[in-house]
């Protein structure tokens, strides 16, 4: 029983952290129809920034700065690597994303020398707490609530502000929105900024829990978050959140059985199953082809 609870708790916590990354994937996909492979690496860079900045200044200064720099990085990536390719075939943009991911990982390897770095301890969040007989960190407990809060705020932004309306319009029909006088580039930049900011928050939570950062540390959470976004129906924010919790719990349940070799394969099997049964994911809109 105790074991089951602990599995569930870590599943939900990890799911929450995946959700924050998955939102970035799903929003970008909704607007640009682009799988932003570099997103997981932005997440990793946010972690590295956390390490380097905390080394030279107090936490209350460094954490907001991490947020700012990560947002800046996301913005620059979009402007430098995706914007010039707006009229190019979709495959080129995707390759560009893979290229950026490659560049970020190699640069991080160069800077850190390939050694794992240790994330700083954040007071309170890193403290241990006992729940239902299992001990865990506070961050594990707080993550799902923080995620829900951020998601509610985000949906408010999308449903009730002018920017949000513009974002929905661009997602629905790129060209018509442009004709209606919406500044596409601004909206896309805002999307990347929100995505990167959430990834930065996600990285703080994630790396407080799992402290070592290597240049490839973003790859696995990134991939899982992406799978989560697809399971939930890519393009849909509630879908991404639900998908992330499903993937997080599913992964931890498989890890608790004796088939641990298949913890990744299991999530992919689930993904393929859902895609075959419901090709656009759980919450995805059905697309009809125009001839």
């Amino acid at each position, binding site marked *: 029983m*105790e*074991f089951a609870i*602990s*599995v569930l708790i*870590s*599943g939900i916590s*990890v799911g929450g952290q995946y959700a924050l990354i998955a939102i970035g994937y799903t929003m970008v996909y909704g607007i640009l129809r682009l799988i932003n492979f570099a997103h997981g690496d932005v997440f990793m*860079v946010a972690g*590295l*920034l956390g390490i*380097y*900045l905390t*080394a*030279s200044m107090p936490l209350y200064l460094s954490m907001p700065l991490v947020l700012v*720099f990560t947002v*800046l*990085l996301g913005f*620059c*990536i979009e*402007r*430098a*690597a995706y*914007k*010039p390719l707006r009229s190019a075939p979709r495959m080129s943009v995707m390759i560009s994303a893979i290229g950026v991911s490659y*560049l*970020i990982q190699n*640069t*991080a*390897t*160069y*800077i*850190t*020398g*390939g*050694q*794992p770095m*240790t994330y700083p301890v954040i007071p309170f969040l*890193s403290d*241990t707490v006992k729940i239902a007989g*299992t*001990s*865990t960190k506070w961050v594990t407990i707080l993550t799902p609530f923080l995620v829900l809060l951020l998601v509610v705020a985000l949906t408010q932004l999308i449903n009730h502000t002018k920017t949000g309306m513009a974002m929905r319009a661009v997602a629905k029909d790129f060209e018509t929105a442009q004709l209606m006088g919406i500044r596409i580039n601004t909206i896309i930049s805002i999307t990347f900024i929100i995505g990167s900011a959430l990834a930065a928050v996600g990285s703080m939570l994630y790396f407080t*829990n*799992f*402290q*070592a950062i*290597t240049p*490839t*540390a973003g*790859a*696995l*959470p990134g991939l899982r978050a992406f799978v989560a976004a697809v399971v939930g129906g890519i393009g849909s924010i509630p879908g991404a959140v639900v998908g992330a919790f499903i993937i997080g719990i599913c992964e*931890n349940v498989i*890890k*608790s059985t*004796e088939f*641990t*070799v298949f*913890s*990744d394969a299991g999530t992919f099997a689930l993904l393929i199953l859902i895609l075959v049964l419901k090709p656009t994911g759980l919450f995805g809109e059905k697309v009809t082809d125009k001839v």
Partner: protein
Amino acid sequence: MKKLLSLALASAMVLSLAACGGGNGASSNGGGSNASGASNPAPAGDKVIKIGVFEPASGDSASGGKKETLGMQFANSETPTVEVGGETYTVQLVLSDNGSTTDKAPSAAADLVAQNVAIVLGSYGSGVSMAASDTFKEAGIAAMGVTCTNPNVTAGNDHYFRICFLDNFQAQVLANFAMDKFRAKTAYCLGETGNEYDQGLIAFFEQIFTANGGKVIKDSFPTNNSDFNSYLNKAKAENVDVIFTPVSIAYATQIITQAESLGITAPFLGSDTLDDNMVLDAANGTSIQLYVSTFYQEGGAPAFDEGIKNYINSNSTAKDANGGNDTIAAVTAMGYDAYYVALEAIKAAGSADPAAIKAALGSVTYTGVSGDIAFDDGGDAVRDTAYIKHSTNTGAWELETVQQAG
């Protein structure tokens, strides 16, 4: 114009990334020391003999590879020349990064061969050694493994040697230790999926442990995994007596910090990879019981300890490579010994010809800081001693016991 702008932005992106690291220049310089060997200008007029250092400077095993290289570099600074046939040769270390991955290993090895090295030392990690083995074989160069413990490295060839013990011996030592010291009946084994080092040790451990009536629960985690909570909770729920984690350094630090926050009380057993400053740091201040088997214990050779500490403290790149402090890793001592064994082989061969060195290496004997070194017919070192030490959790290792074979 637009293209220019985006190019500028792209470079700004790279620079900003670099600047983030640059702000903390000293600690980010880790890779520096490793590449310097090749460029050491040889004194004019002197004859040069090159020793290839085939070690990871990036990837999962970078930390260990750098420490091993450190031992060789220290040895090289101590004895930079060798007498061959009445002539004095300057020894030059040529470094090549195998990136800790088997697909980059052959070309890194080819790089060394292309630079005409006389003998190769390395690597930390058995997989890369095996992947590069044929390249050295074809070139007719002898390779000497320093801490690659997988049986298959030397099996079935006559050019690969090693100066360390093997996985089956190490697993046996640890299994016996678990049963003697903790009266362990059940063990939880955790390794990386698809990593032959982890899985090989676990398989041997299981064979010995179950043969003596113990029970083993085996799990593996995917590459790049960082969430070990579920695995550790399982170990806790199963009430195991020991947890055996022969994993890479990066994973070991994660496992230890997460075990601490889960309040795990079962002792952890680690293999030689866990004998590392970063692991020691992770255990510092926790209540985790951590035991590792290894090749060398600080204090075994006081003169060497003092020399290497001076070397590390006087050289900032060396200190970075050693993780920022001067705790001596066993792999550093092994790297140091490996260098001298290589010199002995060169002397015994009486020439700088790789084939002659290869022929001579098998019969070389040498007493190093980690003990007596001699090779058996298969090219493996005759070793029957492993040190088991535990973390004091104040940032130091303490010798627990010295285990002999059998």
